[in-house]
């Protein structure tokens, strides 16, 4: 158990280093030198040389990468912006909570609802409820969140004034105002994954219900509730794997949703950084999201191992 866990963690760390190297190489592959972006086009060669020397850009690429890694893992600054001259870490830390709140709430909502709906759908297979869940699920995976956002703003915020059309009210503005401001974004962010995960729960549970050990459970005369728990312990494994991936992916969609609702979270900060061509900030934000993605996958794997101990034996 422990060795499997350590191997997984080790591999996740390796992935992170690999992925960061790719990211670093790609940002250095841009045609424009950062010096030109910062200083403008009207500069002398000498000025460029000076700028590159000041920011360590004349060092070998490997040395630059190592110093960036050092900035990420050891000093936690996530690099220093060429544009603002400040470490980007604090900027990221200040906008992360908003995005994190949106994603966590959307994720929890999506996970709970999808497991409930998927289970109902599988247990009441081919009833009206099953068809309803499946219809919602097909629509949910096909309607892009940002389009749903536009439609809901038109219908619920503009036509009816039930929700604010955008903006983010912090908790300090009152619970009601806060919840009102995040209700639509959370819904639009969560609906896709609610649909994906409820489809998975349904098909996985249906498959498990047909297996031999479920027949044993019924032959044992276990109460319905226990039978269902026995099934879910196995059926949720693929659901949790995909849920882990979804959590990381949601930060990507949060970017679009934040932009529609004018919420200044970390994802929105990424778009601004791109516009300002502040690549250190872009790198930093992408690293944070990638880190979250990898950790979420790791947590999903660990959850599965505790849910279904056989997996630790298989992955040896």
């Amino acid at each position: 158990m422990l060795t499997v866990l350590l191997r997984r963690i080790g591999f996740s760390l390796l992935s992170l280093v690999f992925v960061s190297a790719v990211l670093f190489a790609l940002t250095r592959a841009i045609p424009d030198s950062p010096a030109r972006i910062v200083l403008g086009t009207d500069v002398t060669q000498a000025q460029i040389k000076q700028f590159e020397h000041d920011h360590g850009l004349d060092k070998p690429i490997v040395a630059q990468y190592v110093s960036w890694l050092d900035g990420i893992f050891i000093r936690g600054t996530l690099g220093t912006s060429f544009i603002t001259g400040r470490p980007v870490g604090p900027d990221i830390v200040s906008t992360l909570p908003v995005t994190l709140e949106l994603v966590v709430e959307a994720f929890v909502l999506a996970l709970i609802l999808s497991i409930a709906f998927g289970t109902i759908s599988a247990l009441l297979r081919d009833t009206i409820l099953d068809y309803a869940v499946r219809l919602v699920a097909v629509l949910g995976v096909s309607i892009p969140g940002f389009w749903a956002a536009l439609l809901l703003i038109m219908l619920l915020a503009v036509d009816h004034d039930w929700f604010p059309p955008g903006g983010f009210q912090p908790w300090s503005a009152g619970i009601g105002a806060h919840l009102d401001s995040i209700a639509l974004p959370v819904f639009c962010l969560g609906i896709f994954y609610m649909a994906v995960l409820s489809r998975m729960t349904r098909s996985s549970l249906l498959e498990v219900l047909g297996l031999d050990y479920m027949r044993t459970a019924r032959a044992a005369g276990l109460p319905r509730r226990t039978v269902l728990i026995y099934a879910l312990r196995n059926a949720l494994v693929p659901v949790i794997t995909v849920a882990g991936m979804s959590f990381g992916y949601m930060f990507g969609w949060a970017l679009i949703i934040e932009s529609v609702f004018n919420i200044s979270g970390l994802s929105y900060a990424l778009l601004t950084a791109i516009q300002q061509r502040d690549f250190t900030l872009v790198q930093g934000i992408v690293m944070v999201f990638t880190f979250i993605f990898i950790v979420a996958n790791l947590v999903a794997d660990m959850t599965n191992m505790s849910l279904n101990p056989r997996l630790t034996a298989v992955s040896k």
Partner: protein
Amino acid sequence: MRRLVHMFGGPGGLAGAILVLLIVANGLAAPWIAPYNPTDVDMINTLAEPSPDHWFGTDQSGRDVLSRVIWGGRASLEVSALAVVVGLAGGITLGLLAGFFNGGWLEQIVMRTLDAMAAIPLLIWAIALVGILGVGPFTVLGLTFGNEVKLLVLLGVLYIPTIARIVHTGALGESRANYVAARRLQGVGSVRIMVSDVLPNCLSPVIVQATLLLAIGIIIEASVSFVGLGVQPPAPSWGNMLADARNYLFSGEWWLSVFPGAAISVSVIAFNLLGDGLRDALDPRHTTQALTA
């Protein structure tokens, strides 16, 4: 008819197949079926409601929304289909090599690299990298490509791990099958066995996965174009049309948001239905994954 339904794994799959056929036909025939030039500006007739002249109305520059939706479909299909082609080319090659020469260093290197690549959240990277590279057209070997080519190559590369894993699993099983040993004894070369014997036998789940990736590709193209990093205006794409529509949420020009979004949803439903149907028909054991991005 019954055979058709069976082929696509049920009525849903058949409906999906028909819709996909229409979408592809629309993409190919866009220049002939679009009633107007999608970029023709008509400043006298801006923000016109849907009417017999302009079925889907006109936008802030008086451009015909229907024509833009039709051409947008072409752009959307181009990006999602070519991305899948890139993913298939890379994924099949690597998956076959790793699966066929299993147990060796080649398999280890390929599969571990792909595992690490799977640690990349797709949409964030697509947005960030296109952002870093810049949205302008770019030139390679004297050929100039639009910005969307960056996006599709990027997507394609990020699809590779998914496809390669499926092919790897299939090829792993096939390469141990007796018929491969028999072909070897006949003196048939490895590459030929791989391409003409092993590959066709593990293609079914790949087809299913590719269909589902097309659906994801459409959504991602629209999203990236929506934040201004995909298809560049004035060329129409469903995503950048919706980005324009954002400015008219409060003034009641509903047709600007409704039609391009509906086009995305219908396309995604079509590919999902087809994918689910094909999965039931070709891959009953569901070796393909449900996809998210």
